[in-house]
């Protein structure tokens, strides 16, 4: 070992030459002795000298041989040592590669659902340190992966069980919500029963939110799936309806947009959790403000409370919870997470690309901002929400009010006698409109329902004083318009009904028969609602 650095090759010729010296010296000494001793002893001395020289020469040869042997052995050992060192280095490298590259990759593949064989299949193998080592290496990898696989399966099974139970609870809750809603309609006129039903409804919604939370934490999507887009106002109110103290939430200006169906439920759930946090961690007398405004990147929904506030440390902790939930949450950690809601919000935010931030509010409380990305926002089909759409049902009755409201559409409408049907049909004996035959004409026929889709300002524009031939198809249009209660175009009014303006009769107004309009209105409602 000590001589490992020295070069044996440089000493070899010297050492071979060195071993020539002793026999030579011996021979020289023998020759001197032969020269010095008397002649009678010379023969014996010569023999002794020859024998001694030969012995020394033999010893020298032996020494040379051993020297060569030692040198050779030393070289071999050095090479062997270098090999062993190299192998050690290789093994260290292999182990490092195993821990740093191979295992994470294989475990990641495993977590994505690949089998053990698939996971280890195309991992680039460095061949050839030692078959035994390679075999042990592969076995270790396999064993670790098998263990991980088992654990993953166990975890998956647990999560699936959670989600399964949550789904069952959700099904019951939905059914119950539906039933309660029917009961609310049924007993809507009895205040006592109605109040109790609302109470039940609320409790039911709270259970539903809990089930949704479990489903989300189990890696599934929350609750039900909405087919159509839902206005943001209803989404916000849906979130309010799922928290305990919804009375404390003030719903301020909400942007008039809708959320596409698949993202409705996650958004409602995330908002409900944030609202729950806001109401839970603020004094009971304070209000929580919920606003939704349009920003460049989508819709920013702000929830501001006047609660205990958020220290710098607490803010860092909540951010950590959000991030941890986004990167993946272990069910085992849930016991240690103090605010379950934030974990759910983080999960949903990561999955549906909501940006959530909790910052100290100017009121001293917390201001939570959830930004909904632009691509799940769409223009609302019914401005003002579902209710406003339903409210379009009753047609404006063609009666002039004593004190007309400053409504642009009403102001343009010509005076029409309330009991007179539109042009194109006459009344029969029972007072019902009756069709009469039209002659076919050569003029091009406009599509019968085209005026329906025109903007409401259109009827006022073509005010022609001259009587013009009535085109076929117009009467059908007028008929449908009369059914819908829409204002009749001014030209037709001039043509057919030049009578005096209707006398405003406040008593008559409610008694006006509404029979043609009501079924039609219901038809349109069912059309729109399906």
């Amino acid at each position, binding site marked *: 070992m000590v001589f490992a650095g020295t070069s044996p090759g440089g000493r070899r010729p010297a050492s071979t030459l060195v071993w020539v010296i002793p026999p030579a010296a011996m021979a020289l000494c023998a020759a001197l002795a032969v020269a010095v001793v008397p002649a009678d002893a010379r023969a014996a001395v010569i023999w002794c000298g020859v024998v001694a020289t030969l012995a020394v020469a033999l010893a020298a040869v032996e020494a040379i041989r051993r020297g060569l042997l030692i040198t050779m052995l030393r070289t071999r050992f050095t090479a062997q040592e270098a090999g062993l060192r190299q192998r050690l280095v290789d093994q260290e490298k292999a182990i490092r590669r195993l821990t740093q590259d191979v295992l994470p990759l294989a475990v990641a593949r495993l977590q994505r659902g690949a089998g053990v064989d698939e996971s280890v299949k195309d991992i680039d193998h460095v061949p050839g340190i030692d078959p035994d080592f390679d075999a042990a290496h592969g076995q270790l990898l396999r064993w670790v992966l098998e263990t991980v696989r088992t654990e993953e399966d166990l975890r998956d099974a647990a999560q699936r069980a959670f989600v399964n139970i949550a789904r069952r609870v959700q099904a019951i809750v939905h059914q119950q*919500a*539906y039933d309660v*809603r*029917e009961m*609310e*309609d*049924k*007993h*809507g*006129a*009895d*205040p006592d029963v*109605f*109040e109790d039903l*609302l109470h039940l*409804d*609320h409790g039911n919604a709270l259970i539903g939110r809990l089930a949704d939370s479990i489903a989300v934490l189990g890696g599934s999507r929350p609750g039900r799936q*909405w087919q159509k887009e*839902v*206005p943001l*106002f*209803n*989404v916000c*109110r*849906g979130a*309010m*309806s799922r928290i305990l103290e*919804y*009375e404390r939430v003030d719903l*301020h*200006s909400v942007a*008039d947009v809708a959320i596409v169906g698949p993202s*409705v*439920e996650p958004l*409602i759930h995330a908002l409900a959790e944030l609202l729950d946090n806001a109401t839970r961690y603020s004094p009971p007398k304070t209000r929580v403000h919920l606003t939704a405004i349009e920003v460049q990147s989508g819709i920013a929904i702000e929830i501001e409370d006047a609660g205990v506030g958020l220290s710098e440390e607490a803010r860092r902790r909540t951010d950590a919870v959000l991030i941890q939930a986004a990167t993946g949450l272990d069910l085992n950690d849930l016991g240690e997470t103090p605010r379950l809601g934030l974990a759910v919000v983080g999960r949903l935010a990561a999955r549906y690309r909501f940006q959530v931030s909790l910052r100290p509010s100017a009121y001293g409380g917390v201001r939570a901002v959830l930004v909904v990305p632009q691509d799940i926002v769409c223009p609302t089909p019914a401005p*003002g*929400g*579902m*209710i*406003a759409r*339903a*409210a*379009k*049902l*009753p047609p*404006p*009755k063609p*009666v002039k*009010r004593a004190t007309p*409201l*400053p*409504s642009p559409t009403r102001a343009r409408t010509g005076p029409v006698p309330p009991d007179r049907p539109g042009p194109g049909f006459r009344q029969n004996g029972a007072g019902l409109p009756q069709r009469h035959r039209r002659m076919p004409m050569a003029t091009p026929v406009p599509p019968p329902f085209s005026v329906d889709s025109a903007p409401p300002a259109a009827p006022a524009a073509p005010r022609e004083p001259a009587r013009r031939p009535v085109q076929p198809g117009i009467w059908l249009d007028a008929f449908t318009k009369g059914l819908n209660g829409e204002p009749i175009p001014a030209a037709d009014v001039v043509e057919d009904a030049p009578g005096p303006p209707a006398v405003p009769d406040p*008593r008559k*107004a*409610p*008694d006006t028969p509404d029979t043609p309009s009501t079924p039609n*209105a219901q038809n349109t*409602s*069912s059309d729109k*609602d399906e």
Partner: protein
Amino acid sequence: MSESGRAWDEGGPDRLYTVNRGRAPEEPRPVELVSLIVARAEPEPGMAPEAAAVLRMCRFPLSVAEISAYLALPVSTVGLLLAELLGDGRVEARAPVPAAVLPDPELLQAVMHGLQNL
């Protein structure tokens, strides 16, 4: 009723108590089922959609029952909604108009007797 309930259930994620905003129905109901409601204001952008819808549909007098049917909301909820709107002066409630307003027969009789006594 079942149809309207279904429509609501499919239509919106919000529940009735949020429409009421947690207020219990008042015992002396402010509006009768047959009261006629007339809007006295135009809907404003920040209003709840139900209130805006009431204002929009009540440009002409509508009974409370009709409003309830059109909105597909129970009468109690509509009553609360209208009570709030009445308080704000946005709508006006009118007494239901009978089919024929006849004076009190006793009054007529008294007038007749008075005329006869002249």
